[in-house]
């Protein structure tokens, strides 16, 4: 029987886990043979979790990524922790609010508006986006600005694939990512914590970096709503809030965009927000972090790495930049 903590996600790759549909079929088969008792003995953790907020999530497999740095060797975080401990303020401010409230998010139909300095602007349908490039599985470390971290097997492809297809013009220096802001679906919008919609931005070379991921799934399944379904950004060397969720618009612009957090607290959140143990948040140290579900209650926190450990891959993007000033 699975224990509370062992959710069966100790495998290096979620794709090595028996696909959910396969074991659901297996269960039906056993039940059909009158072996209901045997069926009950099968691990039920996966589908039980997926059913928390509605029907089980459809599988979304991805081939193991060959992008350098894309497969972290850290132990992946339990799916339950990764899908119940979230910051997604559109669904409430507490960590368990998104898992509780995000079932109201409708992920179909869904379109993403491509605007600004591109030769091919327009609305892109989610079904077309899913087929834009082959799905890859990537295991990324995720470092939250609040001092905790996770390791998540995402499914998606490099944002660069999309950028190339819409053909940015010479004026496209930055990208702006806009999250859905619909009061009917997102109860958290009633709070004035941030200036909605949630806006984030990247410099063009950051957006084009192969590690910058447009994710549609995690743990071999489509994204749970609370994790930013149906598509989100994942920029593994920046603090988590830089990776916009449930994207509805990507604008190619000439001026550096102003992110929602920059607007809310410019002295605390800069445009770059690269993970950096040497540059403290004004109110707390960023030198260490607590790995969710792994570091014991009384364990010393682990040291945070420059660019979240992706320095070999992304360090050159910031050569010569004063990272203290441009935090």
């Amino acid at each position, binding site marked *: 029987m699975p224990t509370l903590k062992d959710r069966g996600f100790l495998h290096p790759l979620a794709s090595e886990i028996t696909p959910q549909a396969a074991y659901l079929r297996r269960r039906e088969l056993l039940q059909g043979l009158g072996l209901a008792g045997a069926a009950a003995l099968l691990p039920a953790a996966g589908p039980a979790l997926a059913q928390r907020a509605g029907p089980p999530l459809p599988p979304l497999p991805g081939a193991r990524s060959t992008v350098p740095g894309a497969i972290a060797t850290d132990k992946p975080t339990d799916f339950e922790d990764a899908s119940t401990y979230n910051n997604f303020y559109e669904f409430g*401010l507490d960590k368990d609010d998104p898992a509780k409230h995000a079932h109201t998010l409708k992920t179909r139909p869904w379109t993403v508006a491509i605007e600004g300095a591109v030769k091919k602007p327009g609305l892109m349908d989610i079904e077309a986006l899913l087929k834009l490039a082959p799905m890859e599985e990537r295991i990324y470390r995720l470092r939250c600005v609040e001092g905790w971290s996770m390791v998540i097997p995402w499914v998606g492809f490099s944002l660069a694939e999309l950028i190339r297809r819409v053909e940015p013009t010479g004026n496209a220096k930055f990208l702006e990512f806009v999250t859905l802001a619909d009061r009917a679906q997102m109860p958290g919008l009633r709070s004035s914590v941030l200036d909605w919609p949630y806006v984030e931005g990247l410099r063009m070379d950051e957006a084009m970096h192969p590690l910058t991921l447009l994710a549609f799934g995690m743990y071999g399944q489509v994204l749970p709503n609370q994790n930013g379904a149906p598509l989100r950004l994942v920029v593994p060397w920046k603090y988590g809030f830089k990776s916009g969720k449930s994207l509805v618009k990507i604008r190619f612009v000439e001026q550096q965009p102003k992110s929602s957090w920059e607007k809310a607290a410019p002295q605390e959140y800069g445009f770059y927000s690269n993970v950096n143990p040497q540059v403290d*948040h004004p109110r*707390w140290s960023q030198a260490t972090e607590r790995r*969710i579900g792994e570091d014991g209650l009384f364990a010393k926190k682990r040291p945070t790495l420059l660019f979240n450990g992706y320095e070999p891959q992304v360090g050159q993007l910031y050569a010569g930049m004063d990272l203290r000033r441009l935090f």
Partner: protein
Amino acid sequence: MSAQGRASPARPAWGAGPAGVASAARPRAGASRWLLHPAAKPLVFLLALGPFAWLLYGAIADALGPNPAEALIRGSGDWTLRLLCLTLAVTPLRQATGWHALARFRRLLGLFTFFYACLHFLAFAWLDMGLDPAAIVADIVKRPFILVGSAALLLMLPLAATSFNAAIRRLGAARWQALHRAVYAVALLAVLHFFWMRAGKNDFAEVGVYAAIVGALLGWRLLWHWRARRGAAPGR
């Protein structure tokens, strides 16, 4: 609160003495009989211990969610504030209702506030700072909200240390009471600590609730003091 203040009969500040010597509460009807019941104090003691038992159980049974350290630090902080509000509510409630037996619980609640504040500090020092004295000191200096919280805890030390009857007798009621007025500063620092902690996310809803409660409880005292002075002035 001010409406309530006006509604209550104007009378000189009753039994300004400390809770420990306030045995003058005459048995009244109903509420006071319950408040003076021998089981009342043990019951309040157990109730105040409840959150601690819950946090301890959660830590042992791994029932505090994905980030148990954060849950313990925040949980103990929340309960410090709640106990502080309850402690500060004793006197206004007593004055408003005339249930003077409420005063018996003030010291108990005050000491529990101190208990949860110590737990809160211990959780921060241990779970966040790994009990590294240099890291703790550096953090107190670096983060204003930690500095403010630490100041509140330090201010509570002399109050907890002089909470027993012998200390009250030795200091004398007047001096003892003057010293224990520091709890008002503790309350303001505690709310500031919470406000500053939440400021990074502009998340002030919960802070607002505590600020309103503390504001009302301290405001009541100002009003009471002012009315008592005005009432006494013409005669002398």
